[in-house]
């Protein structure tokens, strides 16, 4: 799993993930998200366009990052989920709790 942090000049930070977000990578991604928040990146957009597969541990990593961001007074938003990501969000009904943005730009808006 590749993880790239891109602070945006207009505010907010985009985290681009590439690969499978599952048992192999989820703990590391959660750690990276929590660290990003601790480093001052409180308004995060996670771009899932290149995430080919997410399992429940991957969802847990995103939820962990979201909680860290909110506790710091910020937020974590999900953008461009690929088809399997949409499936697991629907299976868990997390798509009713977490808004899934169709683009990074829309997710950044309002930060």
């Amino acid at each position, binding site marked *: 799993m590749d993880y790239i942090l891109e602070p945006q000049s207009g505010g907010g930070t985009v985290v681009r993930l590439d690969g499978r977000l599952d048992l*192999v990578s989820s703990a590391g991604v959660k750690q990276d998200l929590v660290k990003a928040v601790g480093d001052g990146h409180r308004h995060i957009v996670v771009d899932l366009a290149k995430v080919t597969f997410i399992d*429940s541990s991957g969802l847990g990593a995103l*939820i962990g990052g979201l909680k860290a961001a909110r506790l710091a007074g910020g937020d974590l938003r999900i953008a461009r989920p690929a088809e399997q990501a949409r*499936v697991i969000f629907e299976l868990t009904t997390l798509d009713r709790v977490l808004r899934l943005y169709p683009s990074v730009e829309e997710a950044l808006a309002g930060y």
Partner: protein
Amino acid sequence: MLATNHRALAEEKVQLDAVPFELSTVHVALERFWSAMDCSLLQTPDERWRLQFATAIAEIAANVIRYAYANRTRGGRIGFRLRLYQDRVEARFTDRGSYFSVFPREPHSISTDPMELPESGFGLAIAHTALDQLRHHRTAKGTNVWVLEKRF
């Protein structure tokens, strides 16, 4: 209601070590299986249906990898089999590890407050929701068997 047994139209079988990076072996086997299914059936399920099945498989695979041999220093082997029938697909995981004492849970309603969302422990519920049947039993010889079924 249990699905009736028909002759399998296609089968994919692999053995894997109980380590997380072997999830790749499971995904590769599933891709081969989908190709075999496309060659075997005139009408095949759509991508969303396949991804639901794949998601359930990944959850059970991760569960078995995590827990089957957790109390052993040397790990162990897991059997993974996929079968295509005229009316359904079936996945089966087997291991000779610890007795699995947490039975599949029915899907539960999730909190609407993101701060109260669980960060773990909902994989079996996901598998339950994605499948028509999820069963587990342990044989007299000490083999754990997970059976995942999804009907067309």
